[in-house]
């Protein structure tokens, strides 16, 4: 009788472990479904770069301004395109995801570089991926953390902080020299430093521009805001005027007499 009892005891002791492994896979598969739905979008470090300068941080820690655009591709994978708007330089990575041993595992492929393998854990809505320590992960360049708010990646000491951009549809109406107003509709910009310019080939109105920022103040007592800036002429650095609303606002408009503009959250149209 000892042997059957021993086998029964072994089975009993193994059962929770086997159940645990199975449930870990199920949890990871559910997490991966939600992660796949969350990833597509446009992300920028506009605010990080802006406030690095404003706070007089050292130049040798100044990360470049980047846009990250993640779009679905075949087989449940994604394309991650990184653009430096100042230089126009682009890089592209192909991302694929699977569940392995109870965790989400990603493979990041870039031409001319070894693949980067990361293992993700999810805690409170944040997916954190750490390089799997093997030779193929040498090019990973640090961790990745993804959440509905955006991406953080790179070196833990000085990571890129890429906030998710919300898309707005705008119209701009510049005053012409005869005091009538022009009208340009269906201008799409995002709230992480997105810009657009309206020009007149015939010179009947000034060159005018708009820009949106969702400003999260890192210091001081200013409240976070969604800001719409107005530009006039060739000066692309200094706004002539601006207006603001709460950071989650879905519509924002300006009437400066020499131009009017209105932007509405694209999802609300």
């Amino acid at each position, binding site marked *: 009788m000892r042997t059957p009892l021993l086998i029964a005891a072994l089975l009993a002791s193994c059962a929770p472990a086997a159940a645990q492994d199975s449930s870990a896979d199920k949890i990871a598969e559910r997490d991966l479904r939600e992660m796949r739905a969350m990833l597509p979008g446009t992300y920028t470090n506009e605010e990080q770069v802006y406030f690095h300068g404003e706070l007089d941080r050292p130049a040798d820690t100044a*990360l470049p301004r980047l846009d990250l655009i993640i779009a679905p591709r075949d087989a449940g994978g994604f394309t991650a395109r990184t653009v430096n708007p100042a230089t126009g330089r682009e*890089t592209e990575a192909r991302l694929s995801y699977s569940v392995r041993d109870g965790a989400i595992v990603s493979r990041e492929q870039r031409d001319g570089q070894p693949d980067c393998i990361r293992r993700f854990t999810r805690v409170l809505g944040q997916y954190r991926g750490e390089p799997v320590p093997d030779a193929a992960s*040498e090019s990973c360049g640090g961790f990745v953390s993804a959440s509905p708010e955006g991406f953080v990646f790179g070196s833990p000491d000085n990571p890129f902080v890429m906030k998710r951009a919300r898309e707005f549809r705008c119209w701009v109406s510049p005053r012409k020299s005869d005091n009538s107003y022009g009208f340009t509709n269906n201008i799409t910009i995002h709230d992480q430093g997105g810009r657009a310019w309206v020009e007149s080939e015939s010179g009947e109105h000034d060159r005018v521009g708009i820009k949106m920022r969702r400003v999260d103040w890192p210091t001081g007592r200013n409240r976070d805001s969604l800001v719409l800036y107005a530009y006039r002429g060739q000066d692309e650095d200094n706004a002539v005027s601006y207006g603001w609303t709460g950071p989650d606002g879905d519509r924002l408009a300006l009437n400066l007499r020499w131009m009017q503009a209105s932007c509405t959250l694209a999802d609300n149209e």
Partner: protein
Amino acid sequence: MSEMRCYMIVTADIADRDAFISGYGAATAPLVAKYGGRYLLRGPGARLLEAPDVGAFGDGASMVISEWPDREAAMRFWNSDDYAKAKALRAGVADVQVLLIDAPKFTSEPA
């Protein structure tokens, strides 16, 4: 220094030289020394004499050549968290081609 010194040869197509020098260049220089390397050359304006297809890494490219005690030292630098932090500073600022080569034993020593 061992017989198997190693050289890291970087060809760079720099889009924003000011950002490259003040950011990446300033952060990387102390790391090269920290991990046992030394610069032999850093400069712009390489002249291309021959190549079938070099893309942006041809005429006018910038080059950096550094010397390392051995390949392991160079790879410790390349794979370090320190360098990962510095490397981020050149994202979209410069495209680079990086080669690592051991000094062959038959290389003549300078007189």
